[in-house]
């Protein structure tokens, strides 16, 4: 009777979405009342609130990797529920469908979610599932050079992406010089990529935020998983500890160095010889304590390490015994402690994290003759940070209010060159002119944003983030407005727009003069001003759950200021300049594009298409004579087509076809001879005036999985990268002797095999 009388009244249906297998919250789940067409998404803490009419509600909640939850609820008053989603047995059929679906509901656009299942479904270069390569499948994202695990988002540079791993800032994401990312997919639960509508809680980079969340350990059973791959092998274990603690740990290591043991022993036994060595490993661990339903404390740890070594021992013609050792060590280490509290619709998240990135090159030479001489030079680059974050999110009828603060302290050491020993005399020389001490800076930010439901169809999210940056010789204060709006055109279609301003105070330049690319982090100073980007985007999102068709189209315009670029290849051991003086500053950039994404399920086949039409340009005073030029990672057309088949419970296959406009390249337009004796020079009129040939490649992967009689899962994955062996050019030049145009390709066909065993 009350329900009938109050038929026109509005009530709030709220709740928390969790996973039935491990009790983990499910953020960004799509929550839709089918009868009215009203929808929302669960927030970061799995909480949702749907304002609807009194009466019957046909609630459908869905998220990637879970079976949809459907229930009819009769509402008389504000109601709160807990929804437990069931994990799908196989997730290979859903790779992007649900991503688009939740995008349609969310006010912000430009955020896309990639789960570990999606990562594993996409064929990769080495057969190793790779988060970054899966992210690069999304429109608006490209990996730059073929094979590398870098991403360039909407005309931005690689240093403009903020990688957060459980809140830990990751400064270098690569193993094997860039061919494999540091993120172990055995422990990654999901990654949210923000490339446009940045929530006010995020800042510090101008192109994208990649927020990676690792799994909590199982609170039911002990779990074990082993991967044996061609490049590396890994283990993952998870276990409950009592009723309230869970633990998960995953690690990977390469084993190329095993093949060098013979050379190493031979050198040690005979006193002459040489060997080279390369090894990487990474370790992730997470301890989660859930004392009750309202609090959750987690401790995450990450360490990734790459080590390359060359050792040579010989007898010189003078009779002196020579010994050379060259060692490159790169490592990232991070730790975070996070406390999450739920006070019934009010969420409070406090976290403390520490992160460090080191790149250390050590050259040691020893010569033993009549006297012993030792020379040792060390070149070191590093950055360290300590970050504290406190975030509050309050969910009420029409509002989702978010506020918080972030405080980070950084210590930069961009290019210390130590001559440790010179003819056995110990030295300590700093190559940085005018800055004997490492640079330090502090970044403080506060933000406030509100997601407000204006009507059944319209909602907005308005936010403001203010940042103060204190560095060596000056301070910077910036205000970053964030505005997003959504209008529901029909139950299946929504229109969105947003405007964001982002600032970046920590810069990275990449020295690719060495065999392994080196990222050098620099603080903002009076000379190096903070980078700044403004972006406007609009998008149309369509999702038809019945026909299993999803489609989105987004258009964006982005302007960037105070960009930096390395000047010429720098030999750091020879240069007397500081790194800061070796970069071009004050660059401006502009990018615009249209991004299209479509996905459809046709029986056992799932097809995903992403297409980007874009243009990105740069302008620097000292590059290209202050004229605009095409950004090196501009791709006019970039197409990815992914097909996934599931033949039966044992066999599945996937194929990925990538096609894009060739990378811009600078080629001469002629040759000037000004002197027959001394020759002349090539006429290079402008930067990036040509393009490499069209890039295209087809990858194929097939998986056989079965459950053993003991209930264990085993899986074989055969992967063929570049199926038709096309030599896609990564560089092109003229042979000066013959005049013939030559190209360099990095990869031809590359078959790989991976075995996974899960308890």
């Amino acid at each position, binding site marked *: 009777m009350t329900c009938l009388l109050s038929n026109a009244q509005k009530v709030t249906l709220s709740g928390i979405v969790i996973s039935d297998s491990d009790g983990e919250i499910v953020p960004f789940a799509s929550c839709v009342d089918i009868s009215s067409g009203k929808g929302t998404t669960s927030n970061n803490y799995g909480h949702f609130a749907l304002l609807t009419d009194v009466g019957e509600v046909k609630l459908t909640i869905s998220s990637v990797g879970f079976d949809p939850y459907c229930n009819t609820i009769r509402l008389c008053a504000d109601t709160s529920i807990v929804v437990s989603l069931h994990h799908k047995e196989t997730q290979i059929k859903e790779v992007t469908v649900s991503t688009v679906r939740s995008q349609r509901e969310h006010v912000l656009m430009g955020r896309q979610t990639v789960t570990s299942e999606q990562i594993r479904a996409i064929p990769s270069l080495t057969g190793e599932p790779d988060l970054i390569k899966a992210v690069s499948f999304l429109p608006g994202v490209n990996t730059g050079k073929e094979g590398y695990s870098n991403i360039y988002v909407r005309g931005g540079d690689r240093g403009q992406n903020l990688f957060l791993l459980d809140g830990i800032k990751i400064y270098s994401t690569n193993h094997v010089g860039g061919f494999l990312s540091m993120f172990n997919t055995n422990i990654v639960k999901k990654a949210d990529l923000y490339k446009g509508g940045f929530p006010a809680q995020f800042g510090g980079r101008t192109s994208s935020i990649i927020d990676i969340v690792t799994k909590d350990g199982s609170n039911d059973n002990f779990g074990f998983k082993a991967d*044996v*791959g*061609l490049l590396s092998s890994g283990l993952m274990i998870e276990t409950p500890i009592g009723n309230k603690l869970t633990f998960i740990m995953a690690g990977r290591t390469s*084993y*190329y160095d*095993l*093949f060098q043991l013979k050379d190493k022993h031979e050198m040690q036994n005979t006193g002459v010889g040489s060997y080279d060595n390369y090894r990487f490993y990474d370790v992730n661990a997470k301890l989660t304590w859930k004392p009750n339903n309202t609090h959750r404390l987690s401790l995450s740890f990450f360490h990734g390490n790459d080590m390359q070594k060359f050792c040579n021992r010989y007898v010189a013609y003078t009779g002196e015994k020579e010994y050379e050792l060259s060692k490159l060590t790169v490592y990232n280490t991070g730790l975070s402690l996070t406390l999450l509290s739920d006070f019934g619709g009010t969420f409070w998240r406090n976290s403390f994290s520490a992160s460090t990135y080191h790149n250390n090159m050590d050259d040691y030479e020893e010569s033993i003759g009549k006297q012993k001489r030792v020379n040792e030079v060390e070149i070191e680059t590093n950055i360290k940070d300590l970050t504290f974050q406190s975030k509050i999110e309050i969910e009420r009828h029409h509002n989702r209010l978010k506020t918080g603060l972030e405080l980070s302290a950084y210590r930069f050491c961009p290019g210390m060159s130590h001559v440790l020993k010179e003819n056995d005399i110990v030295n300590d020389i700093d190559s940085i*002119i005018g800055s004997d001490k490492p640079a330090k800076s502090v970044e403080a930010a506060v933000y406030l944003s509100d997601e407000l439901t204006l009507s059944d169809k319209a909602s907005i999210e308005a936010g403001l983030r203010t940042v103060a940056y204190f560095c060596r010789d000056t301070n910077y204060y910036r205000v970053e407005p964030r505005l997003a709006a959504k209008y529901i055109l029909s139950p299946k279609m929504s229109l969105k727009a947003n405007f964001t301003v982002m600032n970046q105070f920590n810069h990275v330049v990449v020295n*690719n*003069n060495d065999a392994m690319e080196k990222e050098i982090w620099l603080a903002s100073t009076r000379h190096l001003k903070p980078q700044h980007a403004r972006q406007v985007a609009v998008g149309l999102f369509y999702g038809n759950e019945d026909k299993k068709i999803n489609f989105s189209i987004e258009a964006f315009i982005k302007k960037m200021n105070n960009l930096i*670029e*390395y*000047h*010429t*290849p720098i030999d750091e051991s020879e240069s007397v300049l500081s790194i800061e003086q070796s970069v071009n500053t004050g660059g401006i950039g502009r990018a615009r594009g249209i991004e299209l994404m479509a996905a459809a399920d046709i029986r056992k086949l799932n097809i995903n298409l992403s297409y980007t039409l874009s243009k990105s340009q740069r302008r620097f005073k000292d*590059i*290209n*004579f202050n004229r605009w030029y095409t950004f*090196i990672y501009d791709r006019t057309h970039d197409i990815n087509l992914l097909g996934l088949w599931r033949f039966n419970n044992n066999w599945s296959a996937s194929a990925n076809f990538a096609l894009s406009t060739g990378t811009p*390249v600078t*080629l*001469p*337009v*002629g*040759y*000037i*001879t*000004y*002197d*027959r004796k001394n020759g*002349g*020079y*090539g*006429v*290079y*009129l*402008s*930067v990036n005036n*040509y393009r490499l*040939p069209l890039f295209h490649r087809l990858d194929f992967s097939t998986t056989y999985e079965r459950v053993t009689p003991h209930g264990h899962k085993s899986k074989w994955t055969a992967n063929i990268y570049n199926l038709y062996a096309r030599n896609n*050019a*990564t*560089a092109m*030049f*003229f042979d000066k002797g013959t*005049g*013939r*145009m*030559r*190209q*360099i*390709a*990095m*990869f*031809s*066909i*590359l078959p*790989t*095999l991976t*075995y996974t065993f899960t308890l």
Partner: protein
Amino acid sequence: MKIFIATLLTAILAFTSCEIESDVHGYSYKYPGDKLALIGYISPQNGVEASVTRSTSPADGYGDPVLADVTLFLCEDGEEVAECHTIDDIHYTLDAKDYHIDTNRKYSLKAVSKSLGTAYSKPSSFPSPLQLDSVVYEKNDDWYHILTFYFFNESPQDYCRFHMTKYGHGLAYDNNVIGGFSELPKAYSHYEINTHDDIHHRDSAFVEMRKYADEMYIYEKSLRDNFKSETDPYFDNVFPVYDNITGGYGFVCTYISQSVMIMINEEKTYIPK
């Protein structure tokens, strides 16, 4: 199992990846065609020294650059004022005695070819002369010596060349030294000549000092950056070479030439007033 797989990986990587260099097939390099290539220098003291050639295609293995049908003119404030003389099939000259070049006017070169049309350079003004303060002679060892020139009011971006024309006993000595480039901080105003000859046996030397217009620094710097970046095909940013020719390629610049006699003494080197 691991060993087997890792061995397989090594074999696969060895045969299938990393730096596959090959000819480019199915790619059309759009060559904009041969154009006039003009390199020249203009000074009141030395007149005009220039080369005019045909630019050649890098795709043709750098063919024959000689152009037989070219006439080169000196232009003053945009007007043709004198025709240069041919030295050989590439080089042209105009003696300072044949035409008076006024440092208060702008000069350019114009090349006219029946086959490749007309190309002309951007008019160039003359720089202010160098103001020499002192010269210091330093003997490092028996074969290595440095003459350091100190100036008033010169910045590192002033492009200068030094040419030691002869010693006191009349010996010619050719030693072009490019100044203006240093990775040292910007606060210095001296240039050095490193001499690898027996200058310390001499009591004096004549040195020609050239100071070029501002564009020369941009041009030489772009050539240097281009050379450094061009040699590494993996480097993303190949730097373009500065060009100030319309209708063709190349570079034309003005300069001021000054000659000084330096009395060389290990105790005190000085310039006769």
